[in-house]
């Protein structure tokens, strides 16, 4: 009897994460997917409902036949959408590389810092999270605008004569993404570097590697799982980013998150924006699966 209870309890524990996935991921996804297959309508909500349980099975079966992928074909038709996807991909990729370039030395410095100093440094990395993301992005407007802090400083230092036009360009979007997602890159890389046995570096030096060679042959390869984790943690949300391109980007900044938003709120075309969201998810599933594989492999290696 006790065994039975224990077995049931064991199952229940596993059920919790599955329920979580079901309620917070699968059900919303299917709702969005369902909407993406329907037609726009001037109604509340603004689309023709696809299924209605009250209609009975036969009626719903007929509706199933009516389902169309017209919205997806529409996405293919209008170059705006694939351009937005491509541009998002490009912006996310560039931002990820830039974040990596900044985060890696930062993480290395943190991991090599005296043991007593590390918690403080870690705290400083996490500290920005204590302020609203939106406010921090707004703060960048104040910094980057033509009469903003950056330009004032550079003019004061006589580096430039006329204000730089950074705000409302892709550069501002890169800055915003790098700034906002930096901790997501720093933390996994830091944790990979921090757990590394320092005697490995000494061993490499002992065997004839100057410090730089020892870094490339030992430290860097061993931190790759952290680098991969960090890149995905930055790339995936950056791809669908809306707030940063909306606030810092200009009219020419094309990102799928922004397209989705305007489709949803300005055009009130829920079916098309749902289709945009579903395609974005499908595009992102590929890197997510790759990420999972990389993690599984890293775990198998036992390091």
């Amino acid at each position: 009897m006790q065994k039975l209870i224990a077995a049931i309890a064991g199952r229940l524990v596993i059920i919790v994460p599955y329920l979580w996935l079901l309620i917070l991921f699968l059900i919303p996804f299917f709702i969005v997917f369902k909407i993406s297959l329907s037609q726009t309508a001037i109604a509340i909500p603004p689309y023709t409902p696809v299924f209605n349980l009250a209609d009975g099975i036969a009626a719903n079966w007929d509706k199933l036949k009516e389902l169309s992928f017209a919205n997806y074909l529409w996405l293919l038709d209008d170059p705006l959408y694939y351009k937005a996807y491509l541009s998002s991909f490009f912006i996310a990729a560039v931002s990820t590389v830039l974040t990596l370039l900044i985060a890696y030395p930062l993480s290395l410095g943190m991991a090599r810092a005296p043991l007593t100093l590390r918690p403080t440094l870690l705290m400083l990395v996490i500290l920005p999270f204590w302020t609203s993301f939106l406010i921090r992005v707004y703060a960048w407007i104040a910094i980057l605008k033509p009469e903003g802090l950056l330009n004032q400083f550079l003019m004061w230092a006589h580096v430039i004569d006329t204000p730089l036009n950074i705000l409302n360009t892709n550069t501002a979007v890169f800055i915003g993404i790098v700034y906002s997602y930096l901790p997501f890159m720093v933390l996994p890389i830091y944790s990979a570097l921090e757990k590394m046995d320092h005697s490995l570096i000494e061993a490499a030096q002992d065997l004839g590697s100057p410090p730089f060679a020892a870094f490339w042959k030992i430290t860097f390869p061993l931190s790759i799982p952290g680098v991969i984790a960090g890149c995905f943690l930055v790339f995936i949300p950056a791809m669908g980013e809306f707030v940063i391109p909306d606030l810092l980007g200009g009219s020419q900044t094309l990102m799928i998150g922004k397209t989705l938003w305007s489709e949803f709120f300005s055009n009130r075309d829920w079916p098309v924006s749902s289709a945009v969201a579903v395609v974005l998810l499908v595009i992102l599933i590929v890197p997510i699966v790759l990420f999972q594989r990389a993690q599984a492999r890293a775990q198998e290696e036992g390091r």
Partner: protein
Amino acid sequence: MESFGSFRRKFAPWNDPAAKPYITFEKVTKIFGDFTAVDDLSLDVFNREFFALLGASGCGKTTLMRMLAGFEEPTSGRILLDGQDLRGIPPYRRPVNMMFQSYALFPHMTVEGNIAFGLKQDGMAKSEIDARVGEMLKLVKLEKFAKRKPHQLSGGQRQRVALARAVAKRPKVLLLDEPLGALDKKLREETQFELMDLQVKLGLTFMVVTHDQEEAMTMADRIAVMDHGRIMQVATPAEVYEAPASKFVADFIGNVNILDGTVEKVANGEAEITAAAQGLTIRAETGKALAPGQKVWFAVRPEKIRINREKPQDASFNAVEGELWDIAYFGDMTVFHVRLDNGTLIKAASLNAVRKTENPLTYDERVWVSFDTDAGLVLTA
């Protein structure tokens, strides 16, 4: 004078005044903050010697080794290797390799990759590297494991990879930091002999850091006993054991009974010592110049003390009566703790040379402990 030579016949360059030392530590001091890890230390090690630095943790032995490897620079003094001053030479340019305590195998490389690492750094030709790696794998009997990664190996195999990697470059000196520390007892004993064998085969100078005296005694030609950044004695294992230079060394190495005493008389190289607190008079042969009234210690190893039910007949023996207080049975030998009437505990070990004893000694029996006049040592420091 008694002699406690090296067991490697004829290998004793330290006794040859003409022999040139291979490694010289010259008045080396290393200070970390306000902690003096190595204190004005001078030491000579000879070519092809198997040298052990022995001491408790924090005695400076590891720091001494790390200074030779180049991971630390001496605060003052200098280190010479084969006539070359090592000051300012970074670890990657020193002809010294180290086997790390943690082994420090590169987890992302195979066994082969680990062994080849140092050779690649030297820009050796590919064919030559392959040949050398093969040779090393054979030497440590790991040919079958060449393609494995370190996490797929057992502790003993990892230790051998670390060893192969460290000797692959044929360094002038191989440093071994607690080389057997992570192995279990049985494997440790086997590996000790493998290491000694390897050292002779390769003709390298080995310098091993250990806190395990048994390990040091078995493997080393000479041992330096260290304490608080200083060397207390440098000698062969037999000398360190049988003729410790000080009370510290006598106490540190092996088991010993140490009695405080005062010199009563000195005549014909024999001192009569009253062990003050014990109310016991000991006659001991000594070559040391002692004066009556001088405070000394008398040290005698348990295995040199006999234990009997009757008072020994030989009147020249030191003998004292007591009660058998405790018996520690080790299989090969038994250590008896005898409590003298004044309360002093004396340890006496006896070899269990026969399987069956008619009438073994047992707890609470009255017994005599006795030892010859040359069984112990008078120590003044």
